[in-house]
């Protein structure tokens, strides 16, 4: 299977006035095309740094990152979804969704607008296009944020704890929604999460990281039964996987 994303011996360190911090130590992993991968690890281990490096917001100190096998990453092919939806309150839902198109001014602008319209219709948000974000529920806001990212047709979606600001019930249903949208749009995704059960229920692969400087401790390929994350939570292997990752993270905490 073709890889959408590959990290090869990636190191990252940064300086503060009093220290030099070694954040990522020889990171190696890949995410196959149309797969859903998750990064889990102790707090502050460098999960978000991996996403920022992938998105081109930070430069690695050494190592290689390949997108679709290419060394030179076109970061316009990468979509980023953040912890908070970051919808602009003064803009309507439509204006929020088309923000990326306004900024990137792509040549196929008309097609992108059409795609935005189709996505809104498909995911039951079309009747809200003229409304301001404040009239949407938390779950709807995250769906709008996801469609805003998808409108730019990225090859890879980076999800930085996009559900952490939601209450538990909304979180479960938004997880299902986002998962369904990503799968039906045939996108490759890399999720950063603190929530082990969320990672297990959504992912085809889980990459477990160590404490800082982060290295890949374990890679788990999952094959749970069920079409949606909620259904996958009922799989008989779910709790054993949870225990395994939990133990790995707890050991990491103790070693630190």
């Amino acid at each position, binding site marked *: 299977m073709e890889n959408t994303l590959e990290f090869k011996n990636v190191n990252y360190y940064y300086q503060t006035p009093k220290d030099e911090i070694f954040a990522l130590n020889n990171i190696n992993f890949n995410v196959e095309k149309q797969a859903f991968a998750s990064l889990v690890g102790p707090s502050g281990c460098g999960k978000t740094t991996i996403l920022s490096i992938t998105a081109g*917001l930070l430069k690695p100190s050494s190592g290689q990152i390949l997108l679709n096998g290419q060394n030179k990453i076109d*970061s316009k092919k990468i979509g*980023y979804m*953040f912890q*908070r939806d*970051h919808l*602009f309150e*003064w803009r309507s839902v439509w204006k929020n969704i088309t923000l990326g198109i306004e*900024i*990137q001014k792509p040549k196929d602008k008309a097609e992108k607008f059409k795609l935005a319209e189709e996505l809104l219709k498909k995911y039951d948000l079309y009747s809200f296009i003229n409304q301001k974000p404040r009239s949407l529920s938390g779950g709807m806001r995250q769906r709008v944020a996801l469609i805003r990212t998808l409108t730019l047709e990225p090859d890879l979606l980076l999800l930085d704890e996009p559900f952490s600001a939601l209450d538990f019930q909304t979180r479960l249903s938004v997880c299902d929604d986002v998962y369904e949208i990503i799968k039906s749009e045939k996108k490759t995704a890399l999720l950063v999460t603190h929530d082990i059960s969320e990672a297990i229920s959504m992912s085809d692969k889980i990459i477990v990281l160590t404490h800082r400087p982060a290295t890949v401790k374990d890679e788990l390929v999952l094959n749970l039964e069920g079409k949606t994350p909620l259904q996958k939570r009922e799989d008989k292997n779910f709790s054993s996987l949870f225990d395994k990752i939990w133990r790995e993270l707890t050991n990491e905490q103790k070693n630190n």
Partner: protein
Amino acid sequence: MSKKITNFSKTHKQYVRRLRTTKGLIIFFRIFVLVAFVGMWELLAQTHIIDPFFFSCPSRIVKQLIQMAQAGTLLTHTWVTLYETLLGFAIATVLGYIIAVALWWNEKVRKVFEPYIVVLNSLPKIALGPIIILWVGAGTKAIVLMCILICIVITTMTMMNAFMSVDEGKILLLKSMHANKFQIFRKLIVPNTMPDLVSVLKINVGMSWVGSIMGEYLTSKAGLGYLIVYGGQVFKIDLVMAATVILCILAYLMYFLVSLIEKKYGRK
């Protein structure tokens, strides 16, 4: 999405009625305070409990205003001050905003100038009065400059702080979409800080009147500030009070106009 209820219950109707009554009472008492103050002032002056020579009284102020209107001086003096204030207000707001943008744009420049701005902000601008007159000469130019000096620092400081406090996450979102600095400014910083600009306008309404009147105290041949100084010197308290009343009305009108802008762009 919350649905709109069209059939209101009895309790809701009572609630709306209570709200309306409270609102009506507030308006009534606002007018009452003004009428009572003016009435008491007039009564105390008429009965000579206070000396109208030193305290004036509403009827004498009205008489003074009518006299000035008939002589044509009321409009001239009002226009002079209004012109200076509006010009100072506009230049200070635009220039202060532009400086704030420049400081936001370049972090190093901002760090260099930050302490100077803080010092300038705490400096009483009236202290610069004699220098201003020496530099630009006595008259309108000096008054407008005084007005600008009073408003510009607070405009720059408020707007710069507003630009700096825009949510980093939103900036990161735009960066992840490959927005350049100008796009970040236009799509995020400007609209996000509109309520702060409205607050600055509100502050500047008051400050620009302070500036123009102070300027007229220092150097002027016409204007409401000039009338106040002149009236004070020749013990024509009616003239001082008449000019003050016009000032109150103009300042309120300007504040009212800004509050209309606030309804559209202010913090909701």
